[in-house]
Every structure is written in structure tokens, then in C-alpha cells.
């Protein structure tokens, strides 16, 4: 049963993998001699850059906001999550609009100084470095979020013990708090890297040729589906290794908090200069990752709102919200079943299937959409043959023509997020609690319902909210799989932006961000409250 579910979710990924067995065509020869090196190198540098970026932003910010005291800390604590509501392709649009050669910044620079093209050097936003900056700015909250939760959940006793053993405050951070938070940080990093690998919108807009853009070019431009799928399979293999590494880093040790003594955190009070540095660091990150792009979107919307807002626009918001809520709940249930099932009967096969299904997070939405269509369209064909034979009538596309297929695709794409969050939550509950519950006569499902779910309320909420925000931003699968007369905010934004009408895309893009802010704030508050025994 469990295996079936995991396999079903992994089906679209397996459908793409199946192409590996199609013999390689001469297109491969062409790819190897021309562009493959570029794809590999760019993807490598992109992942490396984004990985470093999210760690250097996420971990220090999380530490500052949970363990130190400085002016505005309470405010930064939640607002630093806001970039999570900003889709990477949208932040890329806004910065390009501002920093491009023909944009306001460089134009005013030229009119001030009288320089012309090639008289001065200005960083080119549409470059590999630009893409790294854009992705790191919106993806660092994953690391920040998980690291902060980990810091907050640590028992203060451990830190105090380290202090009595002679560590100063900074040593106890590097030697105790950081290693304890490592699994959470690695999970955050893995999520950010998988998003990076799946990103198509940003790199394509910037003209950076990565694996993902290569898959599209091979599939559509060269018209070779087998070679494109083999490229996708290669990408998936990287991800699979990444996931195995992540799991291995967790397997070596388990981190249960054995002390239940949670005292109020005594935050380190920073010296005046340290505090100024902290405020500068936090506000700069927030400014670049959220406030500046939102201001740009707002100014575009201001110029265009009258031509955009009509009754259809309200419908767009409703559709986006409805889909995001349904998909988030669907993902939670699936993750709970898979996560708890794995805890009850650890079987390597189920584990593998769940890992396989989690890979969807690193796979471009378009590939997932096609992977979902292959089995479901086949199923529909079978159903129609059946109905033709039995009732002499056709049912049409029962599955692949409804919203169900889209919800399913979202789950394949985002299962990693909900599953990892739920598993992390479950992992923190000591197995002795299960044993106690069972020995007191509770059934396994009652243990989940009555003991685990209340204990990991925070993780469950995190899972729901993360998937919600992700679905709200999701584009390619929605674009391909949605039924007739059904549009979303992301689709509208894309259509306008792809027609190079950036200013008009401002309003729907702003609505995505605004709608995403609400769950992000909820998320942040729930983490602050998650600290057992603490009142902050």
C-alpha cells in the first residue's frame, strides 16, 4: 500500500527515466561536441554560487535573529522570510528593468556624467553572476527558516553546558549550536539547490545556458525527445546523489533533544558596533531581496492598474488561492502517510521510492507535466476503450482533463518540501513516545493522530505553508495542465512578461507576492512560538 503510493508519486519521474533505455541518437554527438560543456559548467557554477550565497545569508541571519539582541530584531525576525513570497523569475524581471543598460539607473548615470556605452564599467545583471544573486536573494529564506527553527528548538542547557566547559559565546556557536543545527541547515540548502536546478524562468531570461534550458532546447528546438529525456535523467541523477548525501549526513547521527528544560533564551547583547553591523546586514538583505523589487512592481502596477483590474482579475486570484490551498493540504496528507509509514516499517524499498518521488523538486515543471501526462493520458485512453465497449459512449478525458492532474503534478513537484518538513518533525519525536503510546493501548494511527500531530504542529504548519507559497509561484505545470477557461496569477504574469510587456505584468506579479506574504508571516509567527517553554 505504502509502496504503491510512493511509486505512484514517482511514476512521472520513472516515465522520464524510461527514456534512458532508448538508444542514444546522433544528437548526443552534436551536444557533446558543441554545448554540453557549457551546460555542465554553468549549472555547476550556478549551484555553487547559490549554495554559498544562501548559506552565507541564511545561517548568520538565523543566528543573529534567534540568539542575539539588537534594535529591530523582533521585526527582522519575521520580515526576513518575506523574500520567500517572491518568485525568482519576477525578481529577475524587476532588477533587469532597473539595472539594464537602457534602465533608469544607468540612463541617469550616463546623463549625469555624459558617458556613453563602453566609457564605463557596470555589472551586467543578465549574467551568471546576476542569476546567482537573484536566486540566492529569494532562496536564502529556506536556510534561514530551517536554521532558525533549529536554533530555537535547541535546549538552552546544551549551550550553557558548553559555556561552563569554557567556550565563549562565539565558540559555543561554532562548536555546539552550529553542528546541532546542521541537519536542518543541510535540508534548507538541499531545498534551495533543488529549486536552483529546476529554475527555468530566471536563467532563460538572463540568457545563461544551463542543463534546464538545454533540456528545452533539445526537446523542442532539436525535436529529440529521447535525448532531452536523457539529459533530464542525467540531471536527476545529480539530484539523487545530492539527496543521498543529505540523507547520509543525517544518518550518521540522530539528534534528539534529551533535555526537556527549556529556559528563556538569554540573547547575547551586541556591542554598539556589532549591533550596527547586524542592523545593516539584516536591512540590506531585506531591502535587496524584497523591498526594492516590490517597490518596482508597485510602480509598474500604479501606471497600469486601470487596464488590468476587472472581474476576471478577481477570478485569477480565486483560482490561484484555491489551487494553492488544495495542493498544500493534499501534499500534507501524502507526506504524513509516507513519513509515518516509513517510521512504522522502515523498508529500503519504500525509502527509495520516497526519495525518488522527492526528486520532483529539482525537476523543471515542464518535464514533470509531461511525465504526469504520459501515464494519465494512457489511463484515460484505456478508460475510454472500456466505456466504449461497455456503454458504447466515451467519457472523454476524466483524469487528464480535470484539475486533479494539476494537483497531482504539484504534489510530484513539491513532495520534497512537505515530506522533508514532516520527516524532520517526526525525527525530533523520540521513539520512546511511540512505545509509550502503543503500550498504553493506542493503535498506530491513534499514535499519529493523538500524540505526533499535536507534538509536531509547527512542522505540519510549515509544510502546508511552504507548499502553498510554492504552488502560488509555480508556473510551467500550471501552464500545461490546467483545464479550459482556467487561469492563474502566475500564468497571467508569464503571458505578459513573455510578450515583453513587463510593466503590465507588474500587477499580477505584485498580487502573487502579496498573497504569498500572509502565509509567510503566519509561518514566521508559528516558529517563534515553537520554542517550548519560552514565551517569546
Amino acid at each position, binding site marked *: 500500500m505504502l509502496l504503491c503510493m510512493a511509486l505512484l508519486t514517482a511514476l512521472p519521474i520513472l516515465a522520464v527515466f524510461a527514456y534512458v533505455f532508448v538508444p542514444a541518437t546522433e544528437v548526443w554527438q*552534436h*551536444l557533446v561536441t*558543441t*554545448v554540453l560543456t557549457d551546460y555542465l559548467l554553468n549549472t555547476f557554477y550556478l549551484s555553487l554560487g547559490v549554495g554559498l550565497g544562501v548559506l552565507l545569508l541564511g545561517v548568520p541571519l538565523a543566528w543573529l535573529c534567534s540568539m542575539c539582541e539588537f534594535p529591530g530584531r523582533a521585526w527582522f525576525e519575521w520580515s526576513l522570510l518575506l523574500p520567500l513570497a517572491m518568485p525568482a523569475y519576477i525578481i529577475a524581471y524587476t532588477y*533587469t528593468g532597473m539595472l*539594464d*543598460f*537602457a534602465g533608469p539607473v544607468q540612463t541617469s548615470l550616463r546623463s549625469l556624467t555624459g558617458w556613453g*556605452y563602453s566609457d564605463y564599467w557596470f555589472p551586467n545583471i*543578465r549574467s551568471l553572476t546576476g542569476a546567482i544573486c537573484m536566486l540566492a536573494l529569494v532562496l536564502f529564506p529556506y536556510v534561514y527558516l530551517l536554521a532558525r527553527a533549529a536554533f530555537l528548538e535547541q535546549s538552552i542547557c546544551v549551550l550553557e553546558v558548553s559555556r561552563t566547559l569554557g567556550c565563549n559565546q562565539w565558540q559555543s556557536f561554532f562548536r555546539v549550536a552550529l553542528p546541532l543545527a546542521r541537519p536542518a541547515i543541510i535540508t534548507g540548502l538541499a531545498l534551495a539547490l533543488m529549486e536552483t536546478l529546476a529554475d527555468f524562468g530566471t536563467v*532563460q*531570461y538572463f*540568457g545563461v*545556458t544551463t542543463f534546464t*534550458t538545454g533540456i*528545452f*532546447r533539445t*526537446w*523542442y*528546438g*532539436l*525535436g*529529440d525527445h529521447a535525448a532531452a529525456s536523457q539529459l533530464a535523467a542525467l540531471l536527476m541523477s545529480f539530484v539523487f546523489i545530492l539527496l543521498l548525501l543529505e540523507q547520509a549526513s543525517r544518518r550518521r547521527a540522530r539528534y534528539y533533544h534529551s533535555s526537556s528544560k527549556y529556559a528563556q533564551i538569554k540573547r547575547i547583547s551586541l556591542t554598539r558596533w556589532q549591533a550596527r553591523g547586524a542592523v545593516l546586514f539584516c536591512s540590506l538583505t531585506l531591502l535587496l531581496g524584497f523591498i526594492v523589487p516590490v517597490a518596482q512592481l508597485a510602480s509598474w502596477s500604479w*501606471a*497600469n492598474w486601470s487596464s488590468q483590474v476587472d472581474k476576471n482579475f478577481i477570478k485569477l486570484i480565486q483560482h490561484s488561492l*484555491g489551487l494553492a490551498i*488544495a495542493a498544500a*493540504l*493534499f501534499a500534507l*496528507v501524502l507526506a504524513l502517510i509516507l513519513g509515518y509509514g516509513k517510521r512504522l516499517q522502515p523498508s529500503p524499498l519504500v525509502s527509495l521510492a520516497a526519495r525518488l518521488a522527492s526528486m520532483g523538486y529539482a525537476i523543471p515543471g515542464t518535464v514533470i*507535466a*509531461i511525465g504526469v*501526462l504520459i501515464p494519465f*493520458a494512457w489511463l*484515460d*485512453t484505456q478508460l475510454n476503450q472500456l466505456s466504449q465497449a461497455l456503454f458504447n459512449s466515451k467519457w*472523454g*478525458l*476524466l483524469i*487528464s*482533463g*480535470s*484539475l*486533479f492532474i494539476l*494537483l497531482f503534478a504539484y504534489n510530484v513537484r513539491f513532495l520534497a518540501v512537505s515530506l522533508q518538513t514532516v520527516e524532520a518533525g517526526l525525527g525530533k519525536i523520540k521513539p520512546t513516545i511511540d512505545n509509550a503510546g502503543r503500550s498504553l493501548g493506542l493503535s498506530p494511527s491513534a499514535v499519529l493522530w493523538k500524540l505526533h500531530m499535536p507534538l509536531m504542529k509547527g512542522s505540519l504548519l510549515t509544510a502546508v505553508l511552504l507548499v502553498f507559497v510554492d504552488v502560488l509561484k509555480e508556473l510551467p505545470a500550471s*501552464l*500545461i495542465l*490546467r*483545464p*479550459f*477557461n*482556467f*487561469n492563474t496569477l502566475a500564468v*497571467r504574469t508569464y*503571458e*505578459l512578461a*513573455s*510578450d*515583453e510587456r513587463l*510593466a503590465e505584468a507588474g500587477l499580477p506579479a505584485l498580487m502573487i507576492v502579496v498573497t504569498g506574504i500572509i502565509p509567510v508571516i503566519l509561518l514566521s509567527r508559528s516558529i517563534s512560538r515553537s520554542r517550548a517553554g519560552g514565551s517569546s
Partner: protein
Amino acid sequence: MLRKLVLSMALFATPLMALAEGEVNVYSSRQEQLIKPLLDKFTASSGIKVNLVTGKDDALIERLKLEGDNSPADLLMTADAGRLYRAKDLGLSQAVESDTLKTAIPENLRDPENQWFGLTYRARPIFYVKDKVKPSDLSTYEDLTDPKWQGKICVRSSDNIYNQSMLASMIASQGAEAATQWAEGFVKNLARPPEGGDRDQLKAAAAGICDLALANTYYYGQMLAGDAAEDKAAAEKLAIFWPDQGEQARGTHINISGATVTKAAKNKENAVKLLEFLVSDEAQAWYAEHNQEYPVKTSVSASSLLKGWGDFKADSINLSELGKHNAEAVKIMDTVGWK
């Protein structure tokens, strides 16, 4: 929470696919805002309801292919000829016999076997900066490989279908070898590695990065006719040069937006009615006015803005050729390092 979940699932599973008889279902890569108003006009005049899904051309073709005979789509609309050729090639479209369509649409803008039909066309000419370039220095696309233009040309990425189609048209008329040589020389003359879209190339030229840019005409038209003052100011620094106009020359490269009736169509009759409506004078004039595209129907005049750019000789190659040579074009672009 569980109840809520079941409820919402039930809501989503309600047969959205139960689309009534006689309604026309359209898969369109033409974006909603550029097609919905026309579909609404059609519904108002004929009483036939139209259902619409928009998306990327290739993905819609893939969806059509996987859905097979059960596909609900009656009509596929795309924004270039290459994709219509691909749909035909995959056996996803069917022939339509309609005198209305045949008389309205010039022969080279529709499929020789009547499987697809062009509805509007656009050109991809050379744009030059008025202050820097004399039009007499320009002549053909081939001339763009001349060393005198080194570091002076802007063009978007070769990922884009408009560039792929342009190179495909060269392969069709001059062969792969000549096209490779052209692409090689052309890439050497680029002012910067390709980035951004067509409008970005025009803006870059206006801002001084390059002297020449390749772009589709409607982008230029929209910049001139739109509300944004900076765009307008940028576009006004540029002018159009129609290349390859000589007696023997093949004419400026053009492409179409068009449509095809799907093989799986359940409502072929109404789908054809919709196609016929889209080449009516009313619909053709709407396209010309709202999107600055050229109407395929010669009796309908282009917008006053487009007329101001003057008449030009368009490449008369049958646009099926663009689809035929697409993969080859992409390979050439990879080989010569056109990013």
C-alpha cells in the same frame, strides 16, 4: 481538516471536462489578452461558445499528442509557422476545405495541403539607429556578416523560435552550408552576447550599445503606440530597413500566427466557422489595430502606423519550409556559438 480536503477534492474533480456539445475548444499559444476579445466577438455573432487554454506552443502540441483521439481540443493556435508544421508532421491536424479561407489567405501563408492557415503575419527586418547609420549602407541580411558591422549588431538568443525560423528560411533558400557561413559571420559581428527579448534589442540600439538590431515588427509598433514614454522615445530613435528588396532578392523574412483544426476535433464544423471568422474583415482589422500585425487578407489595410513604414517585398517561400529546417537551424546555431 480532512473533511475540508475531501470537500475541495470533490470540488476539483467535478467534471470540468463535461464541455457541452457544439462548443469550440481552443488550445492557444497566443496569449489570452490577444485572442479572447476576438473569441468573444465570435461568440456574440454566432452564438457558439469558445473555451480557451493558453500555453507554450510546444507544450500544447505535446499535450495534444499525449491526449490522442480523446483530446477535447478542436483548434490549435500558434504564434509561428514552424509549430504548425510540427503539429501536422506529428499527425495532429487535419485538412479543411473552405473557399473562404482559400480566397482570404495568400497561398504561401497556408499549408499546401490545407492543414493550417496563417491569420496574421509579421516581418523581421533590420532596425537601424537614425543618427548613426545611413540606410544606403544597408542592403541584405547577408550584408550583416560584413566586417564593417563588427560589434554593431544586437539580436536575441538563438533559443527563440523567431531566430530559428529566420535561419531555417535561409537554409531553405540557400542551403545549409551558406546558412552556416552566414551565421558564423553574423555572430562575429554581435555587439554583445545575446540577452533579453526583441524589445530589449531595440532599446539597446536606442541606448547606444549597437547600431543595428533584428526584431519583429509588432514589438516596434507596440513600443511606438504604447503608453510608456521611455519606450516610445527609444523607438523613435530607430527606423526600419527592409532587407533583400532587389529584383532578384528573396524579400524580407516573415512569419505568421496561425491555426489548425486538430485531428481529434469533435466540432470540426464550428471550428472551421471560427477560423473563417478570424479572416473576416472585422477580425483582421482588430488584429492590425491592437497588435500591430499585418492582416493576411490583402483587402484589409494595415494600421496607419504600419502603413507609415512603407510597403515591402516579403519572402514568398512557403512557410512549411521553416518547420522542415528547424532542427537543422538549431544545430547550426549551436555549432557557430550563437548563444
